[in-house]
């Protein structure tokens, strides 16, 4: 089976976000594999181990993304592809990424493409579905279970806490939700082997794409941090007075009832 994983390099979940010059400051920040993409990588490895085939992890990113791709290889992926757009594209958006990925994937005869449900940075959740649309293959998002029998696929999808079971067939694109699996840690032998596995680096030119072809469809007007959380208020008086005041505040100030 020919399996592809779409991976994004993101800020570590523990990093504090700081802005400088209207942009998110990346200086000194730790970067990780987007946690939802870790589920995707784990699922791809499990599907390969059960059905045979090969797992290729692809990322649209910069030179630094090689680290996260190596980690994916250390986890057990077979190959990695880095599409480095660092020098060519300054302001890409979801369209940019999806278009590049689809262009790379269009002649790859992928049976299964797995991505994360969202990336924890911009959290648009768009890239997976957009790639499937461009490749004209079916897709199912936020999946928590994947069963493959030949080319028939049964997918369980998380719908706001409920489960939806969908039957579909390969080729297919799915996006991983928390709960799909427990991603493995890269083992030390895995880490030692990762360096010897193929990691191909491509640029837009290699995909016969021009900068205009992948120009962002959106414009970022402003980036700002959420307002600072204000200190809470402690009500005083006896219990009845406090309850009365609380109800009144919920009516008049918070306007939630």
């Amino acid at each position: 089976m020919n399996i592809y994983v779409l991976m994004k390099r993101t800020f570590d979940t523990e990093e504090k976000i700081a802005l400088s010059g209207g942009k998110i400051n990346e200086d000194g920040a730790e970067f990780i594999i987007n946690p939802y993409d870790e589920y995707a990588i784990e699922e791809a490895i499990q599907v390969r181990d059960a059905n045979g085939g090969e797992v290729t992890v692809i990322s649209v990113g910069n030179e630094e993304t090689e680290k996260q791709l190596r980690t994916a290889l250390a986890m057990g992926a077979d190959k990695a592809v880095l599409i480095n757009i660092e020098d060519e594209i300054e302001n890409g958006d979801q369209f940019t990424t999806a278009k590049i990925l689809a262009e790379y994937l269009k002649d790859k005869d992928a049976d299964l493409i797995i991505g994360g449900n969202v990336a924890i940075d911009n959290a648009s959740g768009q890239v997976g579905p957009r790639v499937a649309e461009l490749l004209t293959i079916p897709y199912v998002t936020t999946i928590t279970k994947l069963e493959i029998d030949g080319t028939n696929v049964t997918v369980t999808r998380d719908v706001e806490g409920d489960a939806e079971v969908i039957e579909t067939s390969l080729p297919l694109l799915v996006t991983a939700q928390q709960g799909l699996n427990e991603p493995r840690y890269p083992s030390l032998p895995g880490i030692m082997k990762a360096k010897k596995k193929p990691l191909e680096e491509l640029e837009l030119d290699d995909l016969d794409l021009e900068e205009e072809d992948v120009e962002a469809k959106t414009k970022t007007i402003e980036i700002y941090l959420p307002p600072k959380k204000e200190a809470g208020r402690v009500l005083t008086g006896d219990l009845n007075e406090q309850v009365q005041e609380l109800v009144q505040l919920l009516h008049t100030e918070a306007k939630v009832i």
Partner: protein
Amino acid sequence: MNLIFTEEQEMMRKMVRDFAESEITPWIEKMEKGEFPREILRKMGELGLMGIPVPEKYGGAEMDFTSYILAIHELSKVSATIGVILSVHTSVCTNPILYFGTAEQKQRFVPKLASGEYLGAFCLTEPSSGSDAASLKTRAVKKGDQYVLNGSKVFITNGGEADVYIVFATTNPKLGTKGIAAFIVEKNTPGFIVGKDEKKMGLHGSRTVQLTFEDMHVPVTNMLGNESEGFKIAMANLDVGRIGIATQALGIAEAALSAATAYAQQRQQFGQPIALQQGIAFKLADMATSVEAAKLLVYRAADLRSRGEKCSQEASMAKLFATKTAVEVATEAIQVFGGYGYTEDYPVERFFRDAKVTEIYEGTSEIQRIVISKYL
């Protein structure tokens, strides 16, 4: 000298850090109550952490010494108990077999130690033989193709839990150090008796026991090196063991520093965080400086060792300084936490209790000073 790690080492560091935070943290309470972390060790085995420096052909990860030190460092930041279990297992059980074992001994024991199927221990110290290791009294008498061992050992880390023990005994007390031999002893050997568990001040998840050997028959094929090589074998891995414990101490110190810093930044007194008040700010600055100095000494020694250069003096300096730093920084961390630091609700009292032993085992600070002064 720069602290620059390879891509593999960085990847390993991140993996071990994530593993420690996600898998070991939930175990800390159980370990504090005295439960031995078998399950953690099994998972560490699956990840290759029980055989970091072991060659691939024996099922190890075949990573260099600095990588091994990185792992002890990251593990000890979360749990000094896990740090010492791994250090003893690798530095003074697996390594001696790897360096001095016959092909048959290596084949028999190393793959199982590297995979974590077997846990290792080291038995040198006796009730009346501590720093003066050569004065040990355990006797080994050859009878046919067996040695019969009688004697007792104390403070055996991993004792009772370990499957394989490197045991030192004298075949001829008149020969002094030249009469000491080393044996690979399996736990199920008749005459191998696990005695009382020490009730320790810290490292509660690690087992420390007394062992008694009563007419314990060990096949000649289990002797490590020849009859007069035991002391050499015991001493050969001292540097490695010392850097390992220095690293454990560094991990404790770093954990104490980061807990104290985080607390001082959010604890408000007199209308502002105590971290902004000079009494505490200067304390934190001193703690951070000591930790940084300890880190440089530890990785300097590790780097020398990785490159196969002599490092006895540097290893002793790293151990002396890093362990002193661990005790001092953990003590100051409690001071920063004030009354809360003295309670079990916060981790700093554990760091304090775990730190002290690092100045004692694997060569006391006094022994380290003797070693260092000999090189002057």
